């Protein structure tokens, strides 16, 4: 906010307070007219407002408060008595001052609307008993300003119609006279000029060509549209310009003022709407605009004025109005600032609501209350939409976070002497505010890494045949209930030999490792590993990447790195959209219930079906010919076996990224709105579980860490054959 704006804000607040004080003082003077302190306070209010208004050049306020101040000065000097009449005038004056201030603040460049001018004069008359002229004078000043620029119209109330017929008009069967006769039926022709400057002399003059031009001053109540329609059939053989009368200009200005402020229209649309232009005018001007050369094309408004289709003040006013509307719309589109705590509280309450609605459903079901079932079902759907809406409140676009990195990239590339272009896409992707806040630091770190390690110096790049300017891409998109943020550079890529060397040196892996390329790349997230020989103040100290990974995992997200030597590195971060409530899929095994995030569930299969076949030895499920690693949840979590004879087992196929696995469970309970409750510190290290939720019956269900479990399932499958051989 500029200093002037903040000063205005102070002025607004200050005067509001002063006027409030003034009202209080007036009301107490009503019962105690001799209270000099109150009279002083009245005087001060008017005096201060007058002074501050003067500073900002709000002349109408100065003019009005000056009169009020003079009257109050007389009261103060006992030259005038306080009576009921004066108090009521002063109260009206106070209200009027508030209105004047409001007007000056909202549209400082606008002349005072008539009703305010009239009200000012009336109040001054009541205050002083004389007619005041200062404001009136000012009002006429501004109206003069408005009538400037209409220039070449001599008669204020007349439309100025120019008809420039083309050569072929007669041959095409036009008779300009008939149009003028028709025009006469709509109003009065005040003046008509016929001229023919291009008519050749002597022999060359072709009597069948039309050389005539007409300028007509025309008075009529008809709209521009109607007047234009007179010349509709001549349009092909005649250049028609219809300039509204100057007296109409003010009407147009007023109409422009009253245009809907809720959406931004284009200039042409606005002018058509108020009737200053017809669609034909605008089409014509737009055509001229598009016909013009790119570099010589003028703004539409300028063309319209140049072609004398409309007066300059009207266009200027419309543009101003457009700007105001834009600002207003922009302001309206901006957000209500809500205390994040309040929002957090709301989300918590919604969470509780979800739980109790689940509890109610359970009871309805248990007691077989069929008629209550319908009510419960509709409440259930309401609750879930409330949940979604509440969560959406916290959703913000990631674009703002992304664009902050532009500056970072610019500064860092200058510092490093590299040329780097940051390309952002998917900035409109939304995710939870808390996630955005927490992802900022890891992102910053990863980008700095890309800038420092990834992108080579321009000389190196040119040497390997790449453009000198490196590219860092920042991309975000939604994928199965997650947001994926990618940081990709077209730099040198990771040097897997160096990573392995360093990792062995640091004792992170053994020399006889059998890691895949992917796993090697992921080693850079291990603590204390940096391949950069020289640490810079940007990166390379080997701290950070492990922190990045930890931070991302704390958000129940994951980070993956992929690299092609010489072509670049891509880091993908997967994050859950929200941290609070998810759509879950509830399963049960050995009386224990688990929640799998629904977005990760691919399909459910009954084990005894012919579609799948479990292979206990090789440890995979044959799912329609594909080997699917699996886990028995009961075994994995070591729940004590119950004595209940299992009827059948089911497999829930889950996916995470490219990986899939099957969880073998006893029961499928179906979808469940899950409020995620973090586990306490004690359980933080538990593998395979990210949180818990309270079920409607008061029991606790564990929320599965699908990613971790898939890894465990894949790991198990790998190990099993090794043990057998």
């Amino acid at each position, binding site marked *: 906010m500029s200093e002037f704006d903040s000063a205005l804000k102070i002025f607004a607040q200050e005067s509001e307070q002063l006027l409030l004080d003034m009202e209080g003082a007036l009301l107490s003077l009503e019962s105690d007219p001799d209270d000099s302190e109150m009279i002083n306070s009245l005087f001060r209010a008017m005096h201060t407002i007058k002074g501050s208004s003067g500073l900002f050049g709000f002349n109408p306020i100065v003019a009005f408060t000056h009169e009020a101040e003079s009257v109050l000065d007389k009261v103060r000097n006992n030259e005038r008595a306080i009576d009921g009449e004066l108090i009521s005038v002063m109260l009206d004056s106070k209200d009027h001052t508030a209105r004047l201030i409001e007007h000056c603040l909202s549209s400082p460049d606008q002349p005072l609307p008539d009703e305010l001018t009239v009200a000012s004069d009336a109040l001054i008359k009541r205050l002083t008993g004389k007619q005041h002229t200062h404001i009136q004078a000012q009002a006429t000043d501004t109206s003069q300003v408005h009538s400037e620029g209409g220039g070449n119209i001599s008669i204020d109330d007349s439309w100025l119609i120019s008809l420039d017929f083309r050569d072929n008009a007669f041959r095409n069967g036009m008779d300009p*006279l008939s149009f003028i006769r028709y025009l006469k039926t709509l109003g009065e022709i005040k003046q008509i000029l016929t001229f023919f400057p291009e008519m050749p002399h002597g022999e060359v003059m072709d009597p069948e060509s039309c050389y005539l031009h007409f300028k007509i001053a025309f008075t009529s109540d008809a709209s521009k549209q109607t007047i234009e329609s007179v010349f509709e059939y001549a349009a092909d053989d005649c250049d028609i310009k219809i300039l509204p009368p100057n007296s109409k200009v003010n009407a147009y200005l007023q109409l422009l003022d009253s245009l809907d402020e809720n959406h931004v229209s284009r200039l042409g649309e606005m002018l058509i709407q108020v009737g200053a232009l017809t669609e034909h005018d605008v089409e014509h001007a737009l055509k001229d605009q598009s016909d013009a050369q790119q570099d010589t094309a003028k703004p539409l408004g300028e063309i319209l004025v140049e072609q004398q289709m409309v007066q300059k003040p009207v266009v200027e006013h419309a543009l101003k109005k457009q700007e105001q509307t834009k600002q207003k719309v922009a302001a309206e589109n901006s957000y209500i600032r809500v205390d994040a705590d309040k929002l957090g509280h709301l989300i918590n309450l919604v969470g509780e609501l979800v739980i109790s609605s689940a509890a109610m459903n359970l009871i309805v079901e248990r007691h077989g209350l069929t008629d209550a079932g319908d009510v419960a079902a509709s409440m259930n759907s309401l609750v879930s939409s409330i949940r979604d809406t509440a969560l959406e409140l916290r959703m913000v676009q990631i674009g703002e976070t992304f664009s902050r990195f532009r500056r970072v990239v610019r500064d860092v590339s200058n510092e490093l002497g590299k040329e780097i272009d940051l390309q952002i896409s998917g900035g409109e992707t939304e995710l939870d505010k808390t996630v955005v806040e927490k992802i900022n630091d890891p992102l910053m770190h990863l980008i700095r890494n890309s800038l420092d390690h990834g992108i080579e110096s321009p000389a190196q790049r040119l040497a390997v045949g790449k453009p000198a300017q490196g590219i860092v891409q920042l991309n975000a998109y939604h994928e199965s209930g997650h947001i994926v943020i990618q940081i990709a550079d077209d730099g040198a890529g990771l040097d897997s030999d160096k990573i392995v060397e360093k990792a062995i040196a640091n004792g992170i892996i053994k020399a006889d490792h059998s890691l895949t390329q992917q796993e090697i790349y992921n080693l850079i997230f291990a603590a204390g590993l940096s391949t950069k020989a020289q640490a810079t103040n940007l990166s390379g100290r080997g701290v950070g990447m492990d922190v990045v990974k930890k931070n991302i995992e704390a958000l129940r997200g994951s980070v993956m790195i992929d690299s092609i030597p010489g072509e670049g590195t891509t880091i993908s971060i997967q994050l859950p959209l929200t941290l609070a409530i998810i759509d879950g899929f509830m399963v049960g095994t050995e009386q224990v219930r688990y929640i799998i995030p629904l977005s990760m569930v691919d399909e459910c299969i009954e084990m005894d079906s012919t579609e799948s076949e479990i292979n206990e030895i090789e440890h995979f499920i044959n799912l329609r010919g594909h080997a699917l690693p699996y886990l028995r949840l009961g075994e994995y979590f070591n729940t004590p076996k119950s004595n209940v004879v299992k009827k059948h087992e089911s497999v829930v196929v889950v996916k995470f990224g490219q990986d899939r696995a099957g969880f073998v469970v006893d029961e499928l309970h179906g979808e469940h709105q899950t409020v995620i409750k973090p586990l306490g510190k004690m359980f933080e290290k538990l593998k395979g579980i990210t949180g818990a939720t309270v079920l409607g019956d008061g029991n606790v269900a564990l929320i599965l860490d699908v990613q971790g479990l898939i890894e465990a399932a894949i790991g198990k499958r790998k190990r099993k054959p090794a043990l057998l051989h």
Partner: protein
Amino acid sequence: MSIKVNQQEHQLTKLSIENEMTIYTALEHKTTLTDHLKNNKDIQIDLSGVTEIDCAGLQLLLFLKRQAIEQQINLTLTQHSQAVVEVFELLDLGNHFGDPIVISADWKQ
């Protein structure tokens, strides 16, 4: 021929235009009338027989007037017919030609 030479006395040539003065006759009228302008210094055109005049006809009159002034010929229009007067009034051209116009009481308004 819709243009007749009625009289030629001293320097004065009296012409009259009959029937229509429109785009259909404009070329013919122009040729005839400019010929008269070449040979005479004082021309009077009787318009009483003009039953119809359109913009092309009017343009021709404007053209002749300008030619006449340039060539310092005294060109006057007389006996304007109702059709001519209507057009002159519509375009407010009476003063431009500067000839007295007599409005007959018989004309239907």
